[in-house]
């Protein structure tokens, strides 16, 4: 009964979405306030219906209803409750339902926080988001119904893929999707502005907080996925340039370019067309990511289904969205205009150069990701493009972009003078260069790449300090606290996010430069010394888990004879599928991790004999995720700026009268 209720709610949601995507749009075109006023209630009703559908599926999973195909294929009665609920988005169908839920949620949030928007503009925004929703609901109902019944019901479920039975599964997909789908708001704002022909600084100010929040979620989502891969895949890597990772990284790069370009459009009215184009591209890449991951063209833990109908549907949908919005852009861009003029040395130029580098980097990732797929599709042979390609292309492209991060915030808008920039930044530059040249000696060996990486990180940090000091020195207020308070949260958010990049670069550089990876054979009681740490293997013992059998090893980590930590790496065999899985044991430290994972016994089934063991030292690896979280935090701090809320209040008064119809419809 409950699955049918969910199915019915989805059908109703589709009908409401059709209303939401057509009538307000027509209303905006005809100037009919009654039709425009439908936008808000329709969006909220759609959200409610999708929530009901999602809850129904979650209940089916929680109550082990194996008469539902999706539940039978992706869950098991032995699976702990929190993983049964997370299994709701563990399948292709469920993850699409989560996508749709996020989209409806973002639309609903727009109706709540955009009382100040002109009614015609709001109607267009919500209609555009409704159109995207129609596409996804059609896709769900016609190709991937999550509520399909299984006749006769299965006595037991096939189990969730063991790789997904991890706390990461509970938070990584929702966070990532919040980010992916959040770009639909920026996209809808851009399309609405193109349709209405009005695109100015106010538009950018409306769009900015939404884009920044989405970007922050995406940053956290990607960081969580990376951390998850680090401790579960058992290889100790944090990024593999796997196509699925690239699929989430491309919208991130474009989104990063977009939030900077939006800043220019808001403050200076420049880059208008470019900003709109970026908003379209960012969301198109989110859709492309969904297509790549969900259509089964990629080989990875994320690829669930290989049903050609689904691939064709998403590809068509993608073509319609990208083609339609680019056509609209081509038709309207001349009306939007390029915006203000600026000097060759100015903050605008620095941001533009940064934008171009980010987009070129994104394009190189796109090429490396899609080229093998094209060759394969055209039957020209199978190839793979591995990490060496991405490393060779990516670092040289992003290094200048990161260098500009030190200069951009210091340069004045419109016209900056190069000599004055040099005077203000020379000490920051000198300190960064000297420290970067000396530091590697104290950390171990010296190499040009390590020095270059450290220089970039230090350069961001020192130039940020100079920036803050200049700001405080030029403040008219007295007292250090007053001076600090005079700067806006969006300024501190920017500093925080940039420092996050610095922390991230430190992590990447030092892990790449100083990590030690050893695969060894260890018998019970044997030692191995890696990078000054002594690892003593004390054998393994078998034990049961909730839905698996485990073999748990014991490894003592010592430094100079002193016991630091006892690690328990595990090997799990899952009851339902018989699949094996390695759980690494990690001694986490600010200055580096000690990482141990079990391979297999050297002689088959002789658990008490010698084992193959991985022993890794990963210096500063946690800085990678720490940096990512700082970036996301910076985004959230920036959004808390009063400016965005002031705009709401100031606009609210005159708008109230004009949007009487919309208000009464609430």
């Amino acid at each position, binding site marked *: 009964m409950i699955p049918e209720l969910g199915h019915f709610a989805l059908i109703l949601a589709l009908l409401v979405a059709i209303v939401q995507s057509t009538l307000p749009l027509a209303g905006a075109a005809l100037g009919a306030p009654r039709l425009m006023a439908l936008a808000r209630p329709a969006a909220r009703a759609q959200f409610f219906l999708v929530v009901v559908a999602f809850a129904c599926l979650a209940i089916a999973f929680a109550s082990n209803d194996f008469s539902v195909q999706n539940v039978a294929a992706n869950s098991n009665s032995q699976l702990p409750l929190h993983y049964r609920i997370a299994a709701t988005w563990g399948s292709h169908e469920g993850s699409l339902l989560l996508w749709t839920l996020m989209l409806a949620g973002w639309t609903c949030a727009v109706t709540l926080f955009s009382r100040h928007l002109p009614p015609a503009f709001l109607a267009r925004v919500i209609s555009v988001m409704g159109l995207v929703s129609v596409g996804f609901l059609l896709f769900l109902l016609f190709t991937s119904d999550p509520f399909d019944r299984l006749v006769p019901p299965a006595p037991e479920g096939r189990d969730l893929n063991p*790789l997904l039975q991890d706390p990461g599964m509970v938070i990584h997909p929702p966070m990532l999707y919040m980010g992916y789908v959040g770009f639909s708001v920026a996209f809808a704002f851009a399309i609405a502005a193109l349709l209405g022909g009005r695109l100015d600084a106010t538009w950018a100010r409306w769009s900015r907080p939404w884009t920044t929040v989405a970007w922050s979620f995406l940053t956290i989502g990607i960081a969580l996925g990376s951390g998850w891969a680090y401790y579960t895949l058992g290889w100790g890597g944090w990024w593999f340039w796997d196509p699925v990772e690239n699929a989430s990284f491309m919208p991130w790069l474009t989104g990063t370019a977009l939030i900077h370009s939006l800043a220019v459009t808001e403050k200076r009215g420049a880059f208008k067309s470019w900003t709109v184009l970026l908003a379209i591209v960012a969301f198109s890449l989110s859709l492309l990511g969904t297509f790549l991951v969900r259509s089964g063209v990629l080989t990875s833990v994320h690829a669930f289904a290989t049903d050609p109908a689904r691939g064709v549907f998403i590809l068509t949908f993608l073509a319609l969205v990208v083609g339609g919005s680019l056509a609209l852009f081509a038709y309207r861009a001349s009306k939007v205009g390029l915006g203000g003029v600026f000097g060759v040395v100015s903050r605008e130029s620095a941001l533009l150069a940064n934008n171009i580098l980010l987009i070129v980097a994104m394009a190189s990732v796109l090429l490396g990701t899609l080229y093998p797929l094209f060759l394969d599709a055209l039957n020209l042979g199978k*190839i793979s*493009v*591995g990490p060496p390609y991405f490393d060779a*292309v990516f670092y040289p492209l992003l290094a200048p972009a990161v260098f500009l991060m030190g200069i951009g915030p210091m340069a004045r808008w419109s016209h900056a003078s190069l000599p004055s920039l040099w005077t203000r930044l020379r000490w920051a530059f000198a300190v960064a260069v000297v420290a970067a040249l000396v530091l590697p000696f104290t950390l171990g060996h010296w190499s040009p790449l390590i020095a270059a990486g450290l220089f970039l990180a230090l350069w961001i940090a020192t130039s940020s300090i100079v920036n803050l000091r200049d700001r405080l020195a030029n403040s008219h207020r007295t007292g250090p606290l007053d001076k600090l308070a005079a700067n806006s949260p969006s300024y501190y958010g920017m500093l925080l996010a940039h420092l996050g990049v610095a922390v991230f670069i430190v992590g990447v550089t030092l892990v790449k430069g100083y990590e030690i990876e050893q*695969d060894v054979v260890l018998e019970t009681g044997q030692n191995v010394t890696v990078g000054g740490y002594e690892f003593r293997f004390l054998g393994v013992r078998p034990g049961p888990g909730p839905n698996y059998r485990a073999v748990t090893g014991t490894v003592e980590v010592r430094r100079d004879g002193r016991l630091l930590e006892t690690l328990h790496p595990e090997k799990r065999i899952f009851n339902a599928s018989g699949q094996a899985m390695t759980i690494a044991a990690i001694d986490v430290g600010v200055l580096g991790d000690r990482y141990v994972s079990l*391979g297999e016994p050297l002689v088959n089934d002789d658990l008490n004999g010698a084992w193959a063991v991985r022993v890794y030292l990963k210096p500063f690896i946690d800085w990678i995720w720490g940096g990512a979280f700082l970036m996301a935090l910076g985004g959230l701090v920036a959004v808390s700026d009063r400016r965005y809320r002031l705009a709401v209040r100031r606009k609210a008064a005159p708008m109230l009268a004009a949007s009487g119809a919309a208000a009464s419809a609430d």
Partner: protein
Amino acid sequence: MKPRTRRLAWIVSGLAVLGIAAALVLNAFRSNLVFFFTPTQVAAHEAPRGRPFRIGGLVESGSLAREPNSLTVHFRVTDTAQTIAVSYTGLLPDLFKEGKGVVAQGTLAADGTFHASEVLAKHDENYMPPAAADAVKQAHEAMVTKTLVKSGGGGQ
């Protein structure tokens, strides 16, 4: 600077960045593409010597052997028509099993052994890497065609 000169400067610098990027990308592409070969293609000497490539197929049942007290293992990969001997030093992935699909990256030694630097099996139990599946399918189709041609020839 006149606006026109400035615009020109922008376009030129933009093109320069794109040119450098394109050069970087193409250069990196050429040197880092890894091609895929089936055991049949390797047996027919179609695979390059001294350059890494990937092979795929099934791990032949009963072929897995470990050198005593070392991390070096030997196994054979088959597409059901041809097999190729593979040696690998390191930890095998969880999903590596005899009779299951596998993809390995490495180089071909003079004695015809494939020295794998990486063994990939990033899939679940019921899943076959498409590359491995393809290799088996191709070999099967070739066999069917051969049999058809033979039986057709015998009939005449």
